[in-house]
């Protein structure tokens, strides 16, 4: 658990604080996304957790303990750190890179080596091929994977990630995000994730903290609640004019109650059960129909599971209100 208590940061010589009186709590095992426009203090806030930056006021508690109760160096060895440009050490092999923190903590060589292999497997890079290579030999996407593996090496309970997938193309980024979410399902770390992209935030976060310029917390809530009940006009405009549609992308077709498929059959568009409601909506409207036939992969000729109607989609969207002033 990470608690921010009245944390502020003002740089000497500046009038306005970069982060102002930030207070919120991140629960164990959750991904908390810090998101906001440039200058909102999201990266600064993250870096105050591992004390790369020290707050001017307030305190940060990790599992109930003040994060100043040990030296910065010791603290950082317990927190995973992955940054946008990866910062892989070019003069060391991939395996050595991953083994950096375990080495600092005094693990023996055999243990470090097997841990590196384990992590390479986890991030989808076959150890036999990659452990002895050098960063310069890897593509951008591969480097980012190594960056994540390196952050996970000492199995820290907490991880800080600053736009870790930012430096690659959108297709690779999408894949990396999915794989990371999959990994998190198993390892359940407490993760603080900084991004400027609200869509990434909605996709990755269990909770989202939207920060305004000046480091003011605009809303801290689940993605669903932020989309349905934006706390202010700022939040509403930040999440984008298509927030209702964004919300639809949080739910999969297979998870909602379906109408019986009444044998309209061939005329209807096929909707895969794995798709989001948003994609289903898009497909149905495009086909000019009022409903779609929900099928599971590979069973398009077998019995469909049901139908999803525009009406039901509309009802699901209905809860999304505009902010009250």
């Amino acid at each position, binding site marked *: 658990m990470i608690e921010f208590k009245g944390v502020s940061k003002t740089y000497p010589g500046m009038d306005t604080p970069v982060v102002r009186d930030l207070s919120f709590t991140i629960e164990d095992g959750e991904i908390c996304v810090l998101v906001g426009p440039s200058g909102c203090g999201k990266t600064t806030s993250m870096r105050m957790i591992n004390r790369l930056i020290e707050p001017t006021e307030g305190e940060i508690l990790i599992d109930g303990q003040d994060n100043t109760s040990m030296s910065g160096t010791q603290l950082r060895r317990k*927190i995973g*750190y992955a940054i946008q440009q990866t910062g892989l*050490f070019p*003069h060391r092999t991939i395996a050595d890179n991953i083994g950096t923190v375990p080495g600092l903590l005094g693990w023996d060589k055999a243990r470090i080596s097997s841990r590196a292999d384990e992590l390479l497997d986890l991030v989808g890079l076959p150890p036999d091929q990659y452990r002895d290579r050098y960063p*310069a*030999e890897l593509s951008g996407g591969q480097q980012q994977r190594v960056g994540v593996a390196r952050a996970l090496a000492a199995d820290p309970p907490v991880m800080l990630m600053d736009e870790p997938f930012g430096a690659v193309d959108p297709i690779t980024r999408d894949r990396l995000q999915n794989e990371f979410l999959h990994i998190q399902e198993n390892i359940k770390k407490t993760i603080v994730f900084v991004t400027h992209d609200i869509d990434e935030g909605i996709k990755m976060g269990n909770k989202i903290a939207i920060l305004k310029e000046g480091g003011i917390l605009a809303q801290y809530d689940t993605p669903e609640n932020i989309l349905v009940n934006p706390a202010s006009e700022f939040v509403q405009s930040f999440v984008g004019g298509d927030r209702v549609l964004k919300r639809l992308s949080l739910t999969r077709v297979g998870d909602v109650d379906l109408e019986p498929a009444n044998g309209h059959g061939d005329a209807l568009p096929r909707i895969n059960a794995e798709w989001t409601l948003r994609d289903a909506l898009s497909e149905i409207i495009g086909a000019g129909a009022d409903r779609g036939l929900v099928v599971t992969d590979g069973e398009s000729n077998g019995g469909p599971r049901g139908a999803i109607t525009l009406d039901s989609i509309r009802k699901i969207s209905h809860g999304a209100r505009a902010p009250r002033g």
Partner: protein
Amino acid sequence: MDRILDVFQRADFISDLIIHIELSVLATLFGLLIALPVAILVNRSDFGSTLAINIGNIGRAVPSICILVLMLPIVGLGFDNALIALTLLAISPILINAVVGLRQVSAQIVDAAKGMGLSGRQILSGIQLPIAAPIIFAGIRTSAVQVVASATLATFIGGGGLGNYIVEGFQRGDLYISMAGALTVAVLAIITEVGFGTLQRTFTPKGLRLAQARARTK
């Protein structure tokens, strides 16, 4: 040709050769021992780094013979004094390259290292210096070659070395004596250049060589 070989067989030739090598090795070594710590010290401060580079640049511009000569009123003649002057000469290339080399280590790499929990000293010795090593080595190499060449001029302030033969040849009107000195010092310089070049390649970590190669093809 035989006349040149005759010179080589003179008793004092070997001793002058040794003096020349001594001057060169010691001056480069001392230069390194002074320049590298300074470069490490100023690494933290932007102002210090820029100042060091500026001083280095000015130092590099001063002709080597002028350093030798201007030291005369201060330290006089002799081996020790030539050594002092040559050491001053040796500092500049190493200083410039060390400061720039350390500076060029990308800020993200240092940030990642710090964020992972490496201490300042670990970052310096494990990350910054190894990555800057090729550039620093290039500076040592430049310095060494320059010192070997300038040690030839040590003869003018009584420092000894192979320059003695070049000057003696002129004084006696016998070019062969000069040739003996000139050939030897030329060979010495080439050996130094090539030797350090090989050392440099050996000391460049494989990962860095790959990164350099990649940057070239971009």
